[in-house]
């Protein structure tokens, strides 16, 4: 019985984490410019990876593996948003302007500005 509960909880965590990572990847491809792509990938990756790690922790139970996974999760929790921030900050100071929606629908369909190379 308890094994069933553990499996159900960890599967739910793993599935939702994977879903978030896939959503992030999709956003990375579909979003129009650099900053929105960062937004898609940065936010979902942190929570996605941590949810997956949490699911693995539930599977591992009270053991040394859980402690190690906890440390990895804490490390990702700090570094992942920081790196997103650093990249976005570097892009902004390098002069890459965020793409802002026009009042009229003029911007629609025009060539999307290339993200990346500032």
């Amino acid at each position: 019985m308890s094994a069933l509960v553990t499996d159900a909880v960890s599967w739910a965590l793993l599935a939702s984490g994977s879903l978030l990572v896939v959503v992030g990847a999709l956003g990375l491809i579909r979003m129009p410019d650099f900053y929105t792509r960062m937004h898609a990938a940065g936010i979902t990756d942190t929570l996605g990876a941590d949810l997956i790690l949490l699911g693995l922790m539930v599977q591992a139970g009270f053991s040394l593996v859980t402690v190690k996974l906890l440390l990895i999760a804490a490390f990702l929790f700090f570094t992942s948003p920081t790196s997103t921030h650093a990249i976005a900050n570097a892009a902004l100071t390098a002069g890459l302007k965020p793409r802002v929606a026009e009042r009229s629908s003029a911007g629609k369909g025009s060539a999307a500005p290339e993200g990346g190379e500032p």
Partner: protein
Amino acid sequence: MSIEAIINIALFVFLGLTAFAILKLRALFAVVMLSAVFSLVSAALLVHLDAVDVAFTEAAVGAGISTVLMLATLALTSRHEKAPTRSQALPLIVVFLTGFALVYGTLDMPRFGDPQAPIQVHVAPKYIADTQSEIGIPNIVTAVLASYRGFDTLGEVTVIFTAGIGVLLLLAAFIREPEGLRVQTMDHHLVLRVVTKVLIGPILLFALYVQFHADYGPGGGFQAGIIFASAFIIYALVFGLENARKAVPGRAVRLLVACGVLLYGGVGFVSFLFGKNYLNYSVLGADQVAGQHLGILLVEFGVGLTVAAVMVSTFYAFAGQNPPIGDEDW
């Protein structure tokens, strides 16, 4: 098809695609990033082969430190690869011939995982059978690396030492020692500074764990040295080279480069003096196992010292080339 095969195929497809992208792209910044991805996928493949120690090294060296060094190189040169001016026919032929020779060579190799392959029947059974009684440590990889194959590892450390000396010799003429130790602040990088401060301690602690836990789990001097160096490099990146040089002077790092190799060779020499073979640690302790423990500990420490010092001094040499990045330039 088993799940193992599917994972293998997926990883190899990733590897192939990354390699192809590296070939085709002319934006070198992206190429450096992709080469890091390539190393990370290789590391995943090695984990899948249960070679965690090698995977660890690949992740630390390939995906970590060499990316930083290549980015430092890019900062000194150009971000774009020049289009080739000469005909590419000859290089293509050479590549195809080499590839053909390599593939032809694999035809003579035993089948993957063949239990009768030389690698399975030569010395591996002896190592697996005797490590517990002769060396007495759980991680056979470390026993092989530091004790049974101590000579090879000494060679590897010497290679790293020589490479570090070579880089320093090439760039030494341009190394600018700090004048007056100008303190550079990056006040508006508050997030980076705070997170770096929080992380450097745990990174150093993790390096020590990897260094001294190698007897019991994956790890060792090579990986620990890289992790150690990465803590100093991240400090130099965020707080400026001048501050990093104040914490760890370039002269001291260059001294440590030699100290590690000296420690490794010295341990071998001590066993020499006790009338045993070079790098036979058995004489270092009260009994064989204690001696092996001490020897492996010292030797791995020497490896870690040299690797960390070479990486930090190489980074210093690269980063000292161009003027420090001003606050406004960020």
